[in-house]
């Protein structure tokens, strides 16, 4: 199946009938001007963190709910801070999946919150498509931002990654980017691939063992490598992925050490890429597994910048979606 034969079976629910971006569910299907507007707006928000009052009144009076069905400290707190810096009120709700499975459906949970006049939801859920389900249900009545749905998508992470690349590695149109690790189970990788290709990245590579990087990934327009050295040759940007311990239990890998032996990013292996290639990681890192500490703490790593940029990107996304929700133009 190639990219071009894919058709939108039942419409992309992140757009309304007029084609305006109402929800951010994935980077897939975003139009280039929209993505650029998000990134450019994020640039403006970057400077706000330097002021004595790190807040704008943009979302004053709005209520944003962080609805998390999966544990996450980092993503939840950056979304919380982003909304608060825009002067929104923030409600954090952590639903353990066990209590969700006991009765109340996802839709009922959302409807209950909607009865309290909520303006937007930031949703993380362990199942692919959960944010789509909610967005389809809510339509124009509230904005939905997908903060990670199963193995499907994590658009704000991907946007902050391309923001990082654009700022620190130069124009994406002439950078070769490699994504290394467990691509099969990674929502980050999927969203990165779409974001990079929309911004005109000339070559996206995915590198890992065939059990975690299946050949069918080439359907997403990427080059598949099962050998780290070949995959890193000439690369300007390396996006490492977090390797989850569960992969051992499902026999996709013999051991963590074995993974590190073949695909761990070490200072020596970094030299296979372009000099000064940028190293990104979405966190949290497994030091000594997918990335050696010398690399994680080295001058080529931009992992902490990613966190700072993540805040600005999430402020930008909230602002743009909230602006569109008011009936405004989404000048893309």
């Amino acid at each position, binding site marked *: *199946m*190639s990219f071009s*034969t*894919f*058709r*939108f*079976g*039942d*419409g*992309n*629910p992140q757009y309304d009938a007029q084609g305006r971006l109402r929800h951010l569910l994935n980077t*897939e299907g975003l139009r280039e001007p929209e993505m650029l507007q998000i990134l450019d707006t994020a640039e403006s928000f970057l400077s706000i963190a330097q002021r004595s009052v790190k807040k704008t009144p943009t979302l004053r009076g709005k209520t944003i709910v962080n609805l998390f069905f999966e544990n996450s400290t980092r993503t939840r707190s950056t979304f919380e801070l982003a909304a608060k810096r825009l002067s929104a009120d923030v409600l954090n709700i952590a639903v353990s999946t066990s209590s969700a499975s006991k009765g109340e*459906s*996802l*839709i*009922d949970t959302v409807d209950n919150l909607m009865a309290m006049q909520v303006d937007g939801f930031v949703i993380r*859920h362990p*199942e*692919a*498509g*959960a944010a*789509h*389900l909610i967005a389809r*249900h809510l339509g124009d009545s509230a904005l939905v931002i997908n903060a990670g*749905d*199963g*193995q*499907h*998508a994590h658009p704000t992470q991907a946007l902050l990654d391309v923001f990082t690349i654009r700022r620190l590695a130069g124009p994406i149109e002439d950078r070769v980017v490699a994504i290394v690790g467990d691509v*099969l189970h990674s*929502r980050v990788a*999927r969203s990165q691939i779409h974001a990079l290709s929309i911004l005109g990245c000339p070559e996206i590579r995915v590198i890992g063992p065939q059990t975690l990087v*299946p050949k*069918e*990934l*080439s*359907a*997403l327009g990427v080059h598949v490598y099962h050998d780290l050295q070949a995959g890193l040759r000439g690369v300007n940007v390396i996006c490492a992925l977090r390797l989850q311990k569960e992969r051992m239990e499902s026999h996709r890998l013999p051991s963590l050490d074995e993974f590190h032996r073949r695909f761990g990013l070490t200072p020596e292996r970094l030299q296979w890429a372009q000099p000064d290639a940028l190293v990104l990681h979405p966190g949290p890192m497994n030091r000594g597994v997918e990335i050696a500490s010398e690399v994680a703490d080295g001058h080529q790593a931009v992992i902490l910048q990613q966190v700072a940029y993540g805040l600005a990107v999430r402020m930008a996304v909230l602002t743009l979606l909230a602006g569109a929700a008011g009936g405004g133009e989404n000048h893309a």
Partner: protein
Amino acid sequence: MRRIIRNVRVMDPGDGFDAVTDLAIVAGKIAVRGAVAEDFRADEILDGTGLVACPGLIESSLQAHSPGHGRDGDLASELQAAVAGGVTQVVLRPDTQPVADTPAVLREQQLLAEKLALARVQVSAALTTGLQGQALSEMTALMDAGARVFSQAKQPVHSAALLRLALSYAADLGLPVMLHPEDPELAAHGVMNESGLSLRLGLPGRTAVAEQVGIQRDIAIAALSGCPLFFPHLSTGGAVAAVKAARKRGEAVRCGVSIHHLLLSEQDVGFFNVHAKVLPPLRSLAERDALRRAVAEGDVAAISSDHTPWGVDRESMTFIQAPFGISAVECLLPLTLRLVDDGLLGLMAALRLLSTGPAQALGLPLPSLQVGSVADLCLFDPEAAFTLNPASGASRGRNLPYAQWDLRGRVRYTMVEGRVVFRG
């Protein structure tokens, strides 16, 4: 009751009869197939102008959730849907709650069906207790309670050794066995076809290879005992080819395909459309086309709607949570006419795949409109065009991916043993 249908196009795949003429039905049997005399006494005369009369359709797989909790339909609602679709005979799936693995369940189903007096109901019994694939069900007792076929519904038998025993035991009883061929470990927990598309959506994939591995095993094991097999829902060209090869060797194996696998593909999953979640999963366009070729070349015995209704609750579930299945018995005929419009089949061949084909595969009496045959028949207007509205059906199921499809073919009368069970 004596009934005449005048000036109707009679199409009988039983013997290939195709002419515009009359039918007379007396005492539940076809009395005349041909010009009926003017003075023939009748209680009702139906004008068949523009209509086609064919043997009633046979649905080889109907989930009525009966016994069950009733939220997603029951025997009454789903048989109503069946007769509205021109179906006069259905085989109930055994994966009810509780599973149809005891005579009590089968008797309850038959009693209820008798009371409803809609379509004819054939009960299928679980091949293994609880469909778990761990112990043989009491097949003789189940046969005595009315089972005409043994089935594993959508559960493969995990152990090849147990499957061998089950098929050998069933072979003694002379009843066919319906299997869902799939290697369970390769299939794992996949919810859609494994491909670039499942990777794109981050959904667990179900590889087509699991079906091909499964069917090779099942056919080889069945050959040991000579047990007649029917695979009602194959989804890959490779699996159909395996059945064809076995038939060439003289083995008693037949296969069917669901209409969904002939009209849709994995691309209809789009952005997590739960209505396109079905088992086996919708495959690639290439597999769909291979199945269409196999149907055109006569390698497939039956087309089924694999009717599996789910109520509105399913719409608030994620793709992973939602149960498999499409509710479509009501539009099986118009959907199949799409294949005729696409030039894949003639109308007669299409009707054969919906009536005589499944009867043969299931070892049921062959339906026919010849004089003396039981008057199970369907009268439909092949040119009546309509736009499908999932909310308007008789079925409790709202789960079909054909909303807003423009179709043709409306059932006007469905008769079981000469009795009108549906008027449209």
